[in-house]
């Protein structure tokens, strides 16, 4: 793969790779760093990239593995270290919290790594179960199960918070 092909085929995947990295690492700066590291590695192996059938899936898988390695190597990057920390806000704080999107992001970031990665790959990137299975090295059934668990957990939290807000309003 020459530099032109690399620019046209690999570099456009950077945004997707960044979002995946951010989902895993829960940190924007670390995610940017991880993407840059991956681009270097892919460049070094560009001669072999012609043989890759599914470049999208291949690079996403590589991104995920790289991020998981970073988590393993650096104990400071725990799964729970996030840009925005999730905490159970009391209803008064909730009413003051105008950015509900911010709250939902917190809820998703608080899921286990596999669940939050899968839910984002599906709901943000729109990937098929088969593609997610390839990236995560799971079966389609396992992906489906994890996706369901993630969505149900999010729904539970949304309903929970909504209930608390309503209770406070009634009081």
């Amino acid at each position, binding site marked *: 793969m020459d530099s032109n092909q690399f620019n046209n085929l690999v570099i456009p995947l950077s*945004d997707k790779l960044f979002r995946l990295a951010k989902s895993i690492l829960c940190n924007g700066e670390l995610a*940017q760093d991880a*993407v840059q590291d991956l*681009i*270097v590695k892919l460049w070094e192996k560009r001669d072999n990239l012609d043989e890759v059938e599914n470049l999208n899936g291949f690079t996403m898988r590589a991104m995920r593995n790289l991020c998981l390695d970073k988590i393993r190597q650096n104990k400071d990057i725990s799964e729970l270290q996030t840009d925005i920390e999730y905490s159970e806000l009391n209803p008064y704080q909730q009413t003051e919290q105008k950015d509900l999107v911010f709250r939902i992001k917190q809820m998703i970031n608080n899921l286990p790594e596999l669940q939050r990665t899968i839910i984002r790959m*599906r709901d943000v990137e729109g990937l098929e179960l088969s593609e997610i299975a390839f990236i995560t090295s799971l079966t389609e059934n396992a992906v489906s199960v994890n996706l369901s668990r993630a969505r149900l957990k999010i729904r539970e939290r*949304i309903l929970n918070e909504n209930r608390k807000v309503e209770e406070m309003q009634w009081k």
Partner: protein
Amino acid sequence: MEIMNELLEKYFKGETSVCEENELKQYFKAGNVSSELKIYSTLFDTFDSEALEKAVNPLKKLTQRQRKPIRIWIRSFAYTGIAASLMLFLFIKYPFQVDNYAVVSGNKIEDTEFAEKYVEKKLNHVNDMLNKSMRPLNNSFENVRNDLQPMNKLINVKEKMEKIQNTIQIK
């Protein structure tokens, strides 16, 4: 409304297709959402906002790595050039000097004028000695030449005799 409820239920169980999920997204984006389902609007808004996140300068580390070898080359040339200039400067400023001196009777003579006169004197002495030794030899050559003069007379007689003989033969 009923259809959306069912679709949403299917969604949280992880049983919807990508197509059906797009339908749900369109429904919540449209804004005309039932009060019962309004609490889920933010969830789909969150996914939409996350889809807009982008990688920043993914080529940063790659270009840094590619610049390093060039910088090393430039630095090497620069250092070599500086060293060569310095050496040239020193050579011009302090050229190599060869010591010129003569040794006379074990003494080192560096005065060129004295050395030249000494050499001239010695050469004249050698010349005189040569002339003196050559004088007897010159005398001998002179004597031999004188002794050989009668022989020259003989050669003249011989030539005359031959002439006469030739004259007689013709007749």
